């Protein structure tokens, strides 16, 4: 087995990849692509499927004149046809330090999901761009298309290391400016941003993208197993919080977490996006094969 294949097998094993071959990324909106792919685009071009008429102007191609309408109305009209386009799939994966936490590790989980989504998109001839974000855009694959780029994509995902703090607003803005083509945007993150997730999502949930937000948390964040008198240290900014773990504190934390997640869900869905919450305790293949299909991202 080659080194590349070995690395690839760390994130995705061949058996799982074989199952992913049967899936495709689904977009609720028909979006125009730059190349003819396997998607219907709204843009009118040349194909065999009639779309609409317009008045003839000097210089138009005489082959597309509808002579039946000229016979009846004694006026010249041009036929317009639908054009097939490829789908842009963006995977925005959070690689901030806060993701390097938990058992199972959030960062590894996110990388696996990103690799799986990228694989599905590539094998279906979609244009894929894997973008790593933290306090900005940390790295990206650039647009890729076709099965021949699978190894490169997986390799990119495997090499991603947690770094930096979470500045979702900065990352979101830069992504939106750099990726103007519409497409499916899957954001993989814990969405723990002290400056607020709203700032970043505002750039991403504006209609240009078919937005899917997948919030991933570890079991230790959902059900903390801390005890005693502690000095909690933020992994991103080394911020300290002195606590004495008691029942009411844990209860309050969970309530706050629940409210935070609900708030995020409401924000995303109100803006036409799709929100999905999961834990790293859920096997990522279950997430990909079941949950993402149920939510309409894959099919």
């Amino acid at each position: 087995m080659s080194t590349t294949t070995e690395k690839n097998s760390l994130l995705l094993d061949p058996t799982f990849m074989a199952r992913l071959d049967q899936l495709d990324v689904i977009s609720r909106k028909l979006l125009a692509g730059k190349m003819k792919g396997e998607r219907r685009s709204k843009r009118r071009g040349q194909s065999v499927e009639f779309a609409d008429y317009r008045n003839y102007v000097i210089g138009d191609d005489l082959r597309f004149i509808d002579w039946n309408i000229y016979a009846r109305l004694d006026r010249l009209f041009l036929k317009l046809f639908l054009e097939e386009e490829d789908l842009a799939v963006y995977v925005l994966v959070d690689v901030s330090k806060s993701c390097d936490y938990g058992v199972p590790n959030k960062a590894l989980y996110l990388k696996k999901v990103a690799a799986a989504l990228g694989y599905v998109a590539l094998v279906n001839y979609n244009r894929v761009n894997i973008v790593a974000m933290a306090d900005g855009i940390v790295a990206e694959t650039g647009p890729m298309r076709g099965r021949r780029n699978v190894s490169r994509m997986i390799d990119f995902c495997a090499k991603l290391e947690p770094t930096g703090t979470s500045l979702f607003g900065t990352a979101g803005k830069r992504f939106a400016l750099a990726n103007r083509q519409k497409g499916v945007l899957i954001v993989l993150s814990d969405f723990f941003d002290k400056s607020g997730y709203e700032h970043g999502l505002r750039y991403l949930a504006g209609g240009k993208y078919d937005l899917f937000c997948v919030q991933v948390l570890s079991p230790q964040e959902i059900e903390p197993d801390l005890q005693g008198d502690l000095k909690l240290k933020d992994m991103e900014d080394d911020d300290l919080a002195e606590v004495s773990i008691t029942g009411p504190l844990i209860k309050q934390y969970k309530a706050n977490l629940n409210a935070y997640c609900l708030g995020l869900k409401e924000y995303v869905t109100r803006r036409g996006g799709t929100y999905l919450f999961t834990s790293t305790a859920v096997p990522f293949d279950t997430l990909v094969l079941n949950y993402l299909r149920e939510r309409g991202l894959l099919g």
Partner: protein
Amino acid sequence: MPTWFPRFLNPRDAAIAAGIVAPLLLLLYFLKLRRREAAVSSTLLWKKAIQDLQVNAPFQKLRRNLLLLLQMLLLLFLALAFSRPVVNYSPGAGSLTVILIDRSASMSAKDDGVKSRLDVAKAKAKEIVSSMDSNSSAAVVAFDDSAETVQAFTTDGSRLRTQIDSIQPTDRRSRLKLAYQLAEAQSTFNPNQNRAIIRPDVFLFSDGRVLDADDLRINGNVTYVPIGSENTGNIGVVSLSAKRNYEQPTQVQIFARLANFGPKPIDAQVQLSVAAIDPDKPGELNFIAKPGGFATVTLPPARWFDAKWVAEHPKQKDDNYSTRESVEFNIDLTTAAVIKVEQMNKDGDALAADDTAQVVVPPPKQLAVLHVTDGQNPYMDLALSSLNLQNVKKITPEEYAAAVPIDYDVIVFDRYSPKTLPPAGSFVYFGAYPPPDVKLQPIKEDGVVAMTSDVRVVDWKRDHPILRSLSLARVGASEAIRLKPTLDSQVLMDGVNGPLIVLHREGRGTHLVIAFDVLQSNWPLMQSFPVFMHHVIQFMAIGSEMDVRESLAPGSTPRIPRANLQRQGEPPKQLTISGPGNSVKVDIPPTGDFALPALNHVGVYTLSPPVPQFERMAVNLLSDNESNLLPITAPPGNIGQAIVTGQSTSRLELWWWIVACTGIPLLLIEWWVYTRRVHL
């Protein structure tokens, strides 16, 4: 306060410890808490939770800190255990305690066959020491027929226990009076005693077999702890006597009496054995059973003869039981020997010290008697010849004065007062008196011996061996010498005008003076006269080295006359006393008589170098009181209170109950709370 209510042996120290540690624990919790660092992905939601709850209020921490509560409880229970609460089933030690431990012969009895009564007493005494408060002090006195302060008053419990363990048993008898006096003296002069007089708490550990129970008094609170079981069996030799027949010196007669102090009648075998003494190997004694030296005794329990016991235990006495308690042996013994009488029923016999009794028999010797007379006393001749002595020589006073004989055991002076005497011996004077160098002299008036004409007997010592069984009331004489007895003299018979028979010992001589001439009396015509002569010769023969040595009681300190030390030339400067189990060297003072150290154990003791008449000494228990192992339940002399026997424990220490039942569970709960993250 009822005894079930616990008392605290160490309350002050426990209170001090709790008073220091508890506030420290609280202070630690009030102060900045030790927090360990824990990494989290984000403090975003934690800070919000903290803010919402305001959990940093100090009293809220305390109120909800289960661990602090558990630790405080644990601390308090440990302080309680440290205060050493005890529940006393029986009285414990007070502030001033004297512990009296009986170490006499009966305390060597093993009621269960394993532990002796002394071991049990020591264990119970150590329990009392353990119940002492930190401010209490105690002393330990061991007693038998003497008393010894083993440990003066001290608060050091471990020292007391060590000294209690050091007490060794003896074979001596029990007397409590001296021990009580010593205990009282100890507490009176205790330097640690407060100005207010404190009656000491006296704990007496004994089986109650003391000889002086009717003569006891003590200023103290006495608690008597009886030791021993009433069902313990014991057969003991309680009496032994042996004597050579001076008429047939090779024959020895032995008389022994045994007693059964167990609960049931028993037949016992008695064996006589003899160990001939080899002059070349004086320390070796090989006892050999004598043919004909077996006898059987049938012994009823001694308690059958106790009216009180019989009344309390009706129908247990067998009135038809035939008893044979005594045995008699006659043996031929041509050498010096040690004779041993031993009861052979050892199974179930709790006390070994009284199973045997021994007696030392010197070699037989013909009694040499010299009769110094002018030959005109046929009564005396008849009396002496009737004694069937082997060797009676008769000489005249002139022959005596010409050459004072030195090889006679007894010299009878018949109406002749000698001017000199041999250096040692026994001398009988009839109508005569000793030479001037002897202190016993007649009264002289103008240099003439005073006589009295009214010679009638007023009284005589009926229990003296010389005069026993004699009727002397009608003895009279025409005149008698007026004697002047000294402090060393013993008047055996008193007449109207002064002593008539005086026994005087001085130096190496024994002098028996009969103040009147028998020819001038009616005595020779009485039956008592030949009997008297027989008694005199037999009594005087005791000092002739041929009679059986007197048996000594345990604890005796035999006094060796200087004359005996000098008999074989220059007296030694040191003696070695070899006895049961050990040898001791003692220094001999340069002048005067010399007393040996106490011979505390039964057996035969040997002196080296040998001292005449003290080469070997037999020590025997021969005590009904010590052989009787039935413990006395009432306090001796009815002084104090007795603890009920049979209790397995006198005191219950609660500290380990507290540790086991509360301390350890609290520790486990605290561990569980800490590890399982239990929250209120």
